[in-house]
């Protein structure tokens, strides 16, 4: 059997004259958990619905396993989908909701019962099989929706922002359950979310989408450690990366010396293999967790809001030039609100981007 679970080749989608998906290539390995992440309107849900067959594909091809399913009916693709709204049939019991596809396929009663019982056991729904969806809590409904997918034993599970209707606590819990479920079932899963924490915690592979393109794909920590452009750098990581304008002051044998715009005493030596010419305007990216407080020179941040979370705190402030800056503190309570702090980035972990937002390595 083909080792590729889902394969997309120059897939396009137009709504009338509007291009929503502009040539997407991707490979999701069999048994892997892939996450599409991006801001709203980036086309991630559309792409998922195209894989499901709920939206027609305007160009390119979609393969599941070794079958070309580009023009196949949703039911013939071997996919099951969990909707954001759960899409449970309100007039049917939990049992009948989960048995729906088997009933349509006219499977024998014993088989229906066995499969539904199995799925219910996995999802701890055995006590709720006779209830209507309206008598269930949000988390339970979510589980029924997943159970409906499990019963069909699909090749690929598709999740369209399945946790966004749950409260924060339940979301964390369901996230863990989904991760365990993936380990248990070993099926290919594709998951759409706008929440990068969900993406980071669940994914084997993250596809960052924006403007109808895949901006970057890879393992979560690869995207975190080595973003290929400014968008991905800003999107992955929480709180998001700080960006400051700078110019190349000098090219050194190992890289460049960057001078921050409007900060005469802030210059950093950054190692680059392909340094831009002296005088090129660049953007420096620094993660809040890589900024440390220093007694000496550095970036002077006027802290106006401090988010104290107990273990860590995020200090929000501005530089003298007016650019926003966030840095992270761990441990002690600092009471930095209203003060001016000097922070210094870890020079190894400064990312350099050109004017177009592409990474300079």
């Amino acid at each position, binding site marked *: 059997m083909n080792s590729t679970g889902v394969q997309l080749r120059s897939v396009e989608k137009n709504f009338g004259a509007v291009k929503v998906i502009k040539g997407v290539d991707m490979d999701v390995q069999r048994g892997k958990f892939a996450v599409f992440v991006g801001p709203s309107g980036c086309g991630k849900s559309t792409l998922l619905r195209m894989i499901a067959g709920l939206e027609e594909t305007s160009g390119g091809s979609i393969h599941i396993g070794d079958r070309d399913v580009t023009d196949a009916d949703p039911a013939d693709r071997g996919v099951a989908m969990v909707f954001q709204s759960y899409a449970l*049939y309100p007039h049917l019991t939990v049992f009948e909701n989960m048995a729906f596809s088997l009933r349509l396929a006219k499977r024998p009663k014993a088989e229906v019962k066995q499969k539904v019982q199995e799925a219910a056991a996995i999802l701890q729904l055995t006590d709720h099989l006779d209830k209507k969806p309206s008598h269930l809590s949000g988390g339970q409904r979510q589980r029924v929706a997943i159970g409906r997918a499990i019963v069909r034993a699909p090749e690929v599970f598709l999740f369209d922002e399945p946790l966004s209707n749950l409260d924060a606590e339940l979301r964390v819990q369901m996230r863990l359950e989904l991760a365990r479920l993936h380990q248990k079932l070993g099926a290919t899963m594709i998951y759409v979310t706008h929440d990068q924490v969900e993406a980071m915690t669940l994914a084997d592979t993250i596809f960052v989408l924006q403007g109808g393109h895949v901006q970057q794909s890879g393992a979560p920590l690869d995207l975190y450690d080595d973003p290929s452009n400014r968008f991905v750098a800003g999107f992955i990581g929480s709180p998001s990366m700080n960006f400051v304008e700078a110019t190349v002051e000098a090219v050194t044998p190992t890289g460049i010396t960057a001078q921050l715009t409007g900060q005469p005493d802030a210059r950093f030596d950054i190692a680059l293999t392909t340094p831009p010419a002296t005088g090129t305007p660049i953007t420096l990216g620094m993660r809040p967790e890589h900024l440390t407080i220093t007694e000496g020179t550095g970036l002077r941040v006027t802290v106006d809001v401090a988010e104290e979370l107990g273990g860590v705190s995020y200090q929000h402030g501005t530089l003298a030039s007016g650019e926003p800056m966030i840095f992270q503190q761990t441990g002690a309570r600092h009471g930095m609100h209203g003060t001016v702090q000097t922070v210094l980035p870890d020079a190894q972990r400064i990312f350099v981007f050109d004017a177009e937002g592409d990474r300079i390595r």
Partner: protein
Amino acid sequence: MPPVHPLDRPEREAEMSHSNRRNRELRAAALLVAPFVFVFAVFFLYPTYKVVALSFTDAPLIGEGTWVGLENYAKLLGDRLFYTSLWNNFYFVLLTVIPTTVIALMIALSVSKLKGRMQALVLTLFFLPYVLPVSVVTMIWAWMLDFQFGILQPLIAAVTGKAVPVFKNPHWVMPMIAVVTVWWTNGFNVLLLIAGLRNIPEDLYEAAALDGATPWQRFWRVTWPLLWPIISLVLTLQLILQLKLFDQVYLLSNGGPFNQSYVVLMQMYREAFQLNHGGYASAIAMVLFLVIVIVSVLQFQLLRIGGRK
């Protein structure tokens, strides 16, 4: 004035203002409800009471009668014309209620497939007849079905072999009045069903499609059960409306031929306003009222049980 304990006062004031506020709210509520209660009492409750009272007297249309007890009802039970009328009423219900609901459902299902302005336009076209007054409706159909000049007569001739004076033919009269009625009132049912269809979330159909449901299965397993409350509402409203049949019969056939379209309200009208039998007409009205209540409650209960299954 005795000295007031300083702590007492605010409490008592709070209590006072609380009861003041309740009084104010009650007054406002009474004021707002009063116009409706007045109109309801004068134009509905009082006439209803008079009808009930009249049905136990031998009163003419205008003026007082004498108390005759249940005599009117006893007479009604022996009145063969009443049974004919009642039978015609049920025949008419049979001809209209389920057919109009089925037609409205089919129209609603097709209209709901249309998008945006096109949908609004088509819906308006179907709703237009409902806006017309009954006299206009009957005139249009009387013209179209005119024995000599009606544009529908060639169609009838094509089926039966000859032109038919439909409102003077005992076999044709009730079905044709039913056709006119369905054409006239169907738009409202379409509207109710469209609203019901719009309430069914789109992703249920998507989930069903992924589960492998054919369009036919999607209708019977998703649309039909979720639309059932609206369908049973339409059926019940139609039942009540069609049992009260009068205008179309009065204007199209006047109860004839051979009493084939004579219905209960027709009889009531004739007894009251042509034969001056106010008491007897009231008794007919009372019996029709009871029939409607019993039949519609019965139907609604049956439909509810059917829906739960």
